[in-house]
């Protein structure tokens, strides 16, 4: 049963792929030609996606390299280099059928050998997230020239979410095998399978990508090329979008307060989609190792004291949603119904504090805590100021602490903090980006972005362990729903905002932002209006 449903599922995906992948307009009237000029900031260190997955690298290299799968805005897997896939009924074997006409940019054919090389050899050595994924595999084998089979040690349902271009980019075996990957001279001229080829990189100025005429999808891409211009200054970036000199801005390119102004311009279209693969949530990280934070009621009181609507509206200028629980609405298994909500309620907050015995002392102060400000720019400072003030209203006196990025990460990792702002990406499935901060097995001193708060709940551990092993999505959903209920009751961290990132596109281009990978995806469907 399970197996059939899985196969059917993927068949449906194929079907969906043909419709979603080739949207209505594209087929008949899409114009050929044109160069899309996009903002790049900062300049990436190199363009080999397998070796570096920082945001700017993903942006540019996402046009050059591809993964086996793509994901739509709802995180449904779509075919890419793999035209179809099946999952064995025991949930242990994943078999991918590859597109057969794919060629590397240097003309060599793309085969199953490349996939095996990438997933078994290249990525585990240089790509930490991929290493974690493929460590789950007992074997990765080329069944034939265009079929690859991954055999897992234990069932892991989110395995299908490992094949994003940035998560597992396909690297050419004929270029890298047997070499020191990081020192390969070909790193300067990246070779991929994508719709655009590397042409020129003038450091400090721009990167030119040109159309790959040998691209495996017939008739694609439409654009003649994509140019990324490095513009280090935020104000200049906004101006460039305003005047139409730049066609595309994404991520943090345009500061929050400028977004509404630009979005209102007639030639600019604002989209907040395209970041579902990361879907970060910002929160206040709490170190549970000391009173009063160790007390659940104290954490709940803080939740009640912070007006998160205000943060979204006045600090993020509408770029974001109030976060009600541990799983981002964009991430799989989010369940709005099971979360316990904490509306702004100062009375309730004070009542909780009173209940704990934290009575107002001199100056109405009930407790004093220290809070580290996130060292990533002004927005975070504003948010800190706001939270400090909000908590002061219920008698919690906050001392803000400024740090550099290094100091901040180190103090978090070493548990040397009381509370701190933070934001963490979720990578589509709770097992990838959510569990790591709540399970007790991941309390590892010295390692940031783990369960640094020291939150321990055996039931939570149990559920996070079991859920990804479920082959039945409904059962997995039930477990995750329970998890969301438990976590929102326990409030291990104070979830503030589901961050959204603006994608500003000049309206003369269409079909630019079409999947969950947003501006990082191939652009093989993008075309002039």
């Amino acid at each position, binding site marked *: 049963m399970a197996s059939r449903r899985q196969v059917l599922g993927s068949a449906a995906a194929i079907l969906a792929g043909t419709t979603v992948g080739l949207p209505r307009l594209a087929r008949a009237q899409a114009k050929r030609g044109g160069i899309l000029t996009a903002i790049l900031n900062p300049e990436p260190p190199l363009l080999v996606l397998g070796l570096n997955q920082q945001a700017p690298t993903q942006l540019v290299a996402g046009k050059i390299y591809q993964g086996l799968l793509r994901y739509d805005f709802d995180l449904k897997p779509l075919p890419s280099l793999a035209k179809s896939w099946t999952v064995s009924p025991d949930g242990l074997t994943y078999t991918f059928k590859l597109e057969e006409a794919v060629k590397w940019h240097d003309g060599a054919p793309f085969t199953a050998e490349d996939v095996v090389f990438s997933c078994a050899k290249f990525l585990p050595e240089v790509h930490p997230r991929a290493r974690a994924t493929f460590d789950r595999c007992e074997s990765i084998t080329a069944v034939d020239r265009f079929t690859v089979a991954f055999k897992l040690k234990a069932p892991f349902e989110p395995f299908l979410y490992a094949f994003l271009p940035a998560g597992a980019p396909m690297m050419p075996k004929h270029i890298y095998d047997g070499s020191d990957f990081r020192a390969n001279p070909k790193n300067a001229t990246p070779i991929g399978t994508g719709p655009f080829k590397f042409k020129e990189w003038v450091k400090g100025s721009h990167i030119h990508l040109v159309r790959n005429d040998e691209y495996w999808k017939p008739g694609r891409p439409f654009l003649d090329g994509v140019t990324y211009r490095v513009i280090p200054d935020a104000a200049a970036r906004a101006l460039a979008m305003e005047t139409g000199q730049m066609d595309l801005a994404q991520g943090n390119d345009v500061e929050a307060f400028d977004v509404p102004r630009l979005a209102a311009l007639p030639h600019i279209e604002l989209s907040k989609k395209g970041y579902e693969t990361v879907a970060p949530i910002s929160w206040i990280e709490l170190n549970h190792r000391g009173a009063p934070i160790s007390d659940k009621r104290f954490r709940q009181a803080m939740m009640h004291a912070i007006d998160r609507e205000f943060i979204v509206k*006045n600090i993020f200028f509408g770029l974001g949603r109030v976060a009600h629980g541990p799983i981002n609405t964009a991430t799989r298994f989010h369940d709005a119904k099971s979360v316990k909500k904490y509306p702004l309620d100062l009375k309730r907050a004070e009542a909780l504090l009173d209940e704990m015995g934290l009575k107002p002392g001199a100056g109405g102060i009930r407790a004093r805590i220290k809070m580290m400000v996130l060292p990533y720019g002004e927005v975070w400072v504003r948010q800190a100021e706001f939270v400090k003030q909000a908590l002061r209203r219920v008698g919690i006196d906050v001392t803000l602490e*400024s740090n550099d990025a290094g100091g901040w990460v180190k103090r978090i990792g070493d548990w040397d903090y009381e509370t701190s702002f933070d934001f963490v990406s979720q990578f589509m499935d709770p097992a990838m980006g959510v569990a790591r901060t709540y399970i007790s097995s991941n309390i590892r001193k010295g390692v940031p972005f783990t369960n640094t708060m020291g939150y321990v709940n055996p039931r939570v551990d149990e559920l996070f362990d079991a859920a990804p092993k479920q082959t039945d999505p409904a059962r997995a959903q039930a477990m995750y729903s329970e998890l969301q209920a438990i976590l929102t009751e326990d409030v291990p961290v104070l979830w503030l905002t589901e961050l959204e990132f603006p994608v500003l596109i000049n309206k003369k281009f269409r079909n630019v932002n079409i999947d969950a990978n947003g501006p990082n995806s191939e652009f093989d469907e993008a075309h002039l209006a």
Partner: protein
Amino acid sequence: MDFLRRFARNKGAVLGAAVLAGVVLLALLAPVIFPDSPWEIAGPPFRRPGEMGFLLGTDTLGRDVAAGIAHGARVTLLLSLVSTAVALSIGVILGAVAGYHGGWVDDLVMRFTEFFQTIPNFILLVVLVAIFTPSITSIVTAIGIVSWPPLARIVRGEFLTLRSREFVQAAHVLGQSSPRIIFGEILPNALSPVIVSASLMVATAVLLESALSFLGLGDPNLMSWGYMIGAARTVIRHAWWISFFPGVAIALTVLALNLVGEGLSDALNPRLARKGRA
């Protein structure tokens, strides 16, 4: 009394003193006029001056700009005074040692002073505060560290000339002890330039502190004028008043301090002063 009369003769100085008194008063009365914290969100964001009873408007988060200015006066004055005290103690001690001792001690201290004078002091200030993380202590110390050299030079110069002045030599010939000579003979005569430059240093400290806060290197728990401008910088197109008023406050305070400094200089060094204006 003579001093007061001479000071009062300089109209600018009197004006400066009056403005300064106003600022000090504002700082002292801030908690009375605006009992709420200046960080408190008092109304909707971006209210223009005068709207909804906000004399100077509200900022990006709806905080009262007027309250910020009143409370900021406390912070700004306090930080500037303390950091000047830090600079004074470093500068006077090093300058006195160098000037009185002379010889290799003088050489050493002056090379050290020159070193601190040569390196770009604002950048050093930024580096120091950033590395030691912004807090009252780090800001005050760092401003002190970058501002002492001119003072050390002044004190050293005074000591050097006074040391060879005949009345000091007379004290030596009379067999007076070194501390007596330093504190009884030299220091009282070296004091006026120190007082004058200290008053000007407070002004500089106000500017330095506000520049630091503007760059986001203020103590995150303190509302200072520079911080207000820095936080409103990006929205200047929509809301000029948030950055305008704190700037006026800084300019007025610094101007007042400079005027008072000039007045002090006139009153304390009547002979020198006449040259400048005549």
